[in-house]
């Protein structure tokens, strides 16, 4: 009767087994191989996704608006489907995620007296879990500034992460292609 190891369930021969050394070694080797391959896949497919922009986009003034993306750089867990949504990363494996976003914003002309630009990380389109709020906006040369934001999101399966822009600069014209959103699972 073949026996099995206590943790990984690898088969090994016992004294009463038929003397078939090649078969016993093959069974053992294949069991170890399968086990290590499965472990390796768990590491290689750790959830991570990154989206970025391809062209410029414009945004309304004084309206919180989700930022769209056109290119999927990495996606190990099918978090993005740009044919369904250009703004969302969807959690497929529940856990704690480090989420990061950045954007380059062009401004032409004067800014208002009390300017602000907010980059907001949102869970399920509503709950902010990271906000970067900028007030010192003095466009000159170059006439753009970069904003980034990061945060930890606790994601259940089918929860979504997105990033939104909110500003009050009438002379702001567009968001450059230098915009991205990434999410990386750090814990269960």
């Amino acid at each position: 009767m073949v026996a099995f190891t206590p943790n990984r369930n690898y088969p090994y021969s016992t004294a009463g087994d038929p003397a078939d050394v090649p078969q016993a070694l093959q069974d053992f080797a294949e069991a170890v191989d399968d086990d290590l391959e499965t472990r390796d896949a768990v590491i290689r497919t750790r959830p991570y996704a990154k989206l970025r922009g391809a062209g410029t986009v414009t945004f309304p003034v004084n309206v919180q608006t989700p930022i769209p993306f056109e290119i999927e750089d990495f996606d190990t867990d099918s978090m993005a489907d740009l044919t369904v949504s250009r703004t969302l990363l969807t959690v497929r494996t529940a856990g704690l995620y480090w989420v990061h976003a950045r954007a380059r914003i062009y401004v032409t002309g004067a800014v208002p007296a009390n300017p602000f630009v907010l980059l907001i990380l949102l869970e399920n389109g509503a709950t902010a879990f990271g906000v970067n709020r900028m007030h010192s906006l003095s466009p000159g040369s170059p006439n753009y500034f970069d904003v980034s934001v990061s945060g930890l999101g606790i994601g259940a399966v089918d929860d979504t992460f997105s990033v939104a822009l909110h500003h009050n600069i009438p002379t702001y014209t567009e968001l450059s292609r230098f915009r991205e959103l990434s999410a990386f699972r750090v814990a269960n």
Partner: protein
Amino acid sequence: MPGTTPRGYPFPLYTESANFPTQMQSLALAVDTDVQNNLVTAVNNGLNQPSVLASSSVVQSIANLTDVNLNFTVESYDNANWFNSGVSQTNFTAPSTGFYMMRLSVSYASNATGARTAIVKINGNFIWGKTLTGVSYDITQVMTVHMHQLTAGDIVTFVARQNSGVALNCTNRIASINKISA
């Protein structure tokens, strides 16, 4: 006496008498123990790094020109006993030695005078800070991210400091720590 591989797996030497079941059992059990203890556990730990996420929206007064330890009232995530609000609402204790990423976001009430700083301290020592100028028409929100080595038992505190000339209220604050590497 069998030979052993560098990982400790036993194998029969040519000079040994053949006892295939026993020799195979020894090898299988050695591989089993090694994979379980040194690979599977390491992978699982690597995929579930010690992390904590805490926040508070309870107003906290930040005195002028004073380092004030921020307190946290909501613990959203903690998989390694980082934080115990029953013991301290300000201290985060590193569960193991390693390289960590720390993040703090702190909001100050509107006030146009002076600067607002978000600071990370380890064992009471200043490690990193970020400063922004205050504004009169909006809250001032300072966010900083920093990576640093921690030793098991180190105490991380998140600190606010401002120089408006008067005490300022801190409204919302979020702090997090994630282990990156051993």
